[in-house]
């Protein structure tokens, strides 16, 4: 009876298992990527493509001015007011207002899926990218950047 008990009550050696898990954990922590890099994808128009005569979809042209203010021009829409300006605050772009404005614009014009960003000389690459990001946050999917 006692020998039978001994056979059942065996001790599992957990130390190699813990060693293996520790090694896995150390390896994964060392090789982990902590800052993710992605990309903002834009679809640029190529010279051979022509839009003359085509039925253009509603679009918004966002012009980033040198003083960090924004000029928005709506094209091919039925609304009366087609120009909007969002002023900078303390020399910095008013991102909260831009974000909320673009979201409300997208809600009022559901077909608005196209946008072009024009950066004036002196506007930084970071501000231009953040503008593209704001447009994409407002679910305006086709965003292009003007090379002019």
């Amino acid at each position, binding site marked *: 009876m006692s020998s039978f008990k001994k056979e059942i009550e065996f001790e599992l050696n957990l130390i190699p298992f813990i060693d293996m898990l*520790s090694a896995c954990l150390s390896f994964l922590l060392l*090789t982990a*990527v902590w800052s993710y*890099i992605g990309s*903002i994808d834009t679809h*640029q128009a190529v010279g051979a493509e022509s839009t003359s005569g085509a039925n253009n979809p509603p679009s918004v042209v966002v012009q980033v001015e040198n003083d960090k203010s924004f000029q928005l021009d709506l094209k091919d829409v039925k609304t009366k007011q087609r120009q909007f300006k969002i002023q900078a605050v303390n020399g910095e772009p008013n991102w909260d207002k831009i974000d909320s404005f673009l979201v409300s614009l997208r809600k009022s014009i559901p077909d608005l899926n196209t946008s072009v960003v024009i950066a004036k000389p002196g506007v*930084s690459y970071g501000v231009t990218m953040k503008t593209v990001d704001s447009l994409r946050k407002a679910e305006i999917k086709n965003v292009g950047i003007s090379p002019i």
Partner: protein
Amino acid sequence: MRTILSTHSIPQVTTRGLLLRKNQSKLRKSIQSTITLTSLIDAFVIIVLYLVVCNSPSETMDLEDQITLPQAKVFNQLDGSPVITFKNNQFMIDGQIISEAQLNSRLAQVAGNLKLKVENKEPSIILQADENVDFHKLQPFLTASAHAGIKNVKFAVYQQE
């Protein structure tokens, strides 16, 4: 006398030894009972699984020194497209400095190579530049990529927290 001492001392020593052994075994039992490894192993397994899932294989990109990428909330994953870097007012592909005059021909070459590699996919290129750079300095790249027939221009960004 010696025999008397020996007969009396031996059992005393043995009993002391037995007592010591008993105490040791109690001590061992008490130590073993306090360390519960199950919860530790559970935590280890959860952390390992989390790290394995989070570090799923994706394309990576070598980031140049002195470049702080802009941040964005809505972005796509990298897809292994060729990378052009703008650093110290110069464009670079594969570590080679390219002048603005060479940009058109070099990008056309890159686009040609990409079309040969993947026939049905439109060629794309990733730009890596510092967030404080004047955007107008990057415009030769946009113009050259349009000339080279590269429609998909991607801008490298960090994930915004």
